[in-house]
């Protein structure tokens, strides 16, 4: 069975990702991109092979969605790296992808061929894949938020950064002492990059949610039923909406914005797997497929 080869394939893919992450630290851009891309191609080939042998998209169980997540994390990391050249991003995504792969090796939760009728729909693959992509992108954004927050607390007494984006857009900020005490702002490039990534993540989140709505109409008769999974999807969506709106406020607290981003990612965990353990959702969600 194809699953027997997973450990081997995963080790090869992780080795490539690790090589890419290492090369990033050394500033070797081409090696970074090529190695990560090869790792991704190998991992994706395995997913396709599973798709073929299972005779259905491998998207049903939590284990199968983790597989996609392990794939999309380095992919999101690579996209961010390609644009921004963060040395650290691929190390983070590689470590996280490895964690998810290890979970899958020790607790496979995979994979009978059975696909219950409710999941036999052309919406199934796009709905879940788009969501996994969103989760990966927003995971990368969360890592960036943690990184910037750590940085901000490290140099809490530090020199005020001279020309920040937020100061530039709001001239009052530069003459307001209390704001300087609050202190931390991102430089304009980092700021635009973070917002760009979150916007991309939110766009995919919107696709996932609305594809789900269109599918629900075909499968269950209505496009929105406030099923616990839907409720938490709405909460997650509102969380990221709050972040991108708050970031547009000319005089906002950057640190609070970064905390919001982390909080939104916690809400996302609730939506993804947290509700499986939530007493209020037990036995009421139609989103349980084992």
């Amino acid at each position, binding site marked *: 069975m194809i699953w027997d080869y997973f450990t081997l394939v995963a080790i090869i893919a992780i080795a490539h990702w690790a090589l890419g992450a290492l090369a990033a630290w050394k500033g070797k851009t081409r090696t970074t991109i090529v190695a990560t891309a090869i790792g991704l191609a190998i991992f994706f080939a395995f997913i396709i092979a599973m798709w073929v042998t299972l005779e259905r998209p491998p998207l049903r169980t939590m284990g199968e969605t983790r597989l996609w997540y392990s794939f999309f994390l380095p992919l999101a990391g690579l996209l961010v790296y390609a644009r921004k050249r963060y040395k650290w991003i691929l190390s983070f995504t590689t470590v996280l992808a490895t964690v998810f792969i290890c979970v899958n090796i020790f607790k496979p939760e995979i994979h009978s061929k059975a696909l219950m*009728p409710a999941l036999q729909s052309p919406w199934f693959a796009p709905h879940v894949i788009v969501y996994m992509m969103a989760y990966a992108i927003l995971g990368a954004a969360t890592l960036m938020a943690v990184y910037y927050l750590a940085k901000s607390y490290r140099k809490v007494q530090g020199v005020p950064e001279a020309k920040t984006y937020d100061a530039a857009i709001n001239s009052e900020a530069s003459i307001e002492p209390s704001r300087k005490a609050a202190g931390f702002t991102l430089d304009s490039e980092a700021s635009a990059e973070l917002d760009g990534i979150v916007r991309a993540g939110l766009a995919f989140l919107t696709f996932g949610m609305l594809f789900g709505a269109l599918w629900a109409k075909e499968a269950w008769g209505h*496009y*929105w039923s*406030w099923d616990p999974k839907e409720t938490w999807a709405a909460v997650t969506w*509102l969380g990221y909406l709050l972040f991108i709106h708050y970031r547009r406020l000319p005089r906002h607290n950057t640190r609070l914005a970064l905390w919001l981003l982390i909080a939104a990612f916690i809400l996302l965990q609730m939506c993804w797997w947290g509700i499986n353990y939530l007493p209020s959702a037990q036995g009421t969600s139609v989103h349980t497929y084992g």
Partner: protein
Amino acid sequence: MVTDNLRQAPWDWRLSALICAALVAVGIALQWAVGPVVWAVFAWPVNIICMAALLAALLLMHLLRRKVRLFSYLSSLPAALPAIATALVLTMVMGLTRQTADGHWLSDMLCFWPFVLAYVYVTLIVGLTTLRRLSKIASLLAGPNRSLRIADIAFVLNHAGLFLALTCATLGNPDLQRLKMITTLGAFEWRGVDDSGLLHNLPVAIELKRFIMESYDDGSPRRFASDIHVRTKRGKDFEATVDVNHPVEVDGWKIYQYSYDTKAGADSRISIFELVRDPWLPYAYAGIIMMLAGALFMLFGNGRKEVKES
């Protein structure tokens, strides 16, 4: 210059936070005094009147926005933030509470006044924001540059789409009909049972020709379906197959494979369908499609430019 005013106290986010707190307080008082929101009241034609009144009110507020500062404030970012946060918190409470549709406070959030009022407030803000951006686009198009930016298109699609989806899904819900129809082999059935157990005569009749059940090797179900013969009052007469995920549509009704005689399994001589009619669906879908297009634009547009206004 409107935005300049908005940045000054007390027209910052605190006012909106105050409004949200007041709405929650009023909601709790209402819940206590008159009980849960009774959505059935909004059945046709009340809902279309409400929709028209809402649009008229929004337009009026938009036109008066330079005279009444509150109206322009309601389409601003500082007003939006507490509204989103309040909707988020109440939806989170809903996610943490078992929902039962018993009309009892937190366990029936959809009929809980504070929840409903918070979303009405969000809808109001989204509506006014859409109008404001539309009028800005109109003035840009009339201006010397005649420019239309991707960011503006995305903005309108996202906000107008959400407005349309929220209003049509909510106001249309009382018109939504969902009935279970139990059909037996070889006999036409035209009656359906609603959620409260009442029997209704329907304009669609279904005869079960054959129930289909297939299993995987391990015994887990692979397919439920029914071959049916459909006749409608409007004179349609045809045969079709209803599969899970593949409803059959006729005269504004969608016919879903819902259940069967689970004890008999593959030998079931009955098949249960759900018949759904949702006259507001095309409008809610228009909103959803606008939001999808908006998300697509969001991927490619540069949202940063949106910060500068007026």
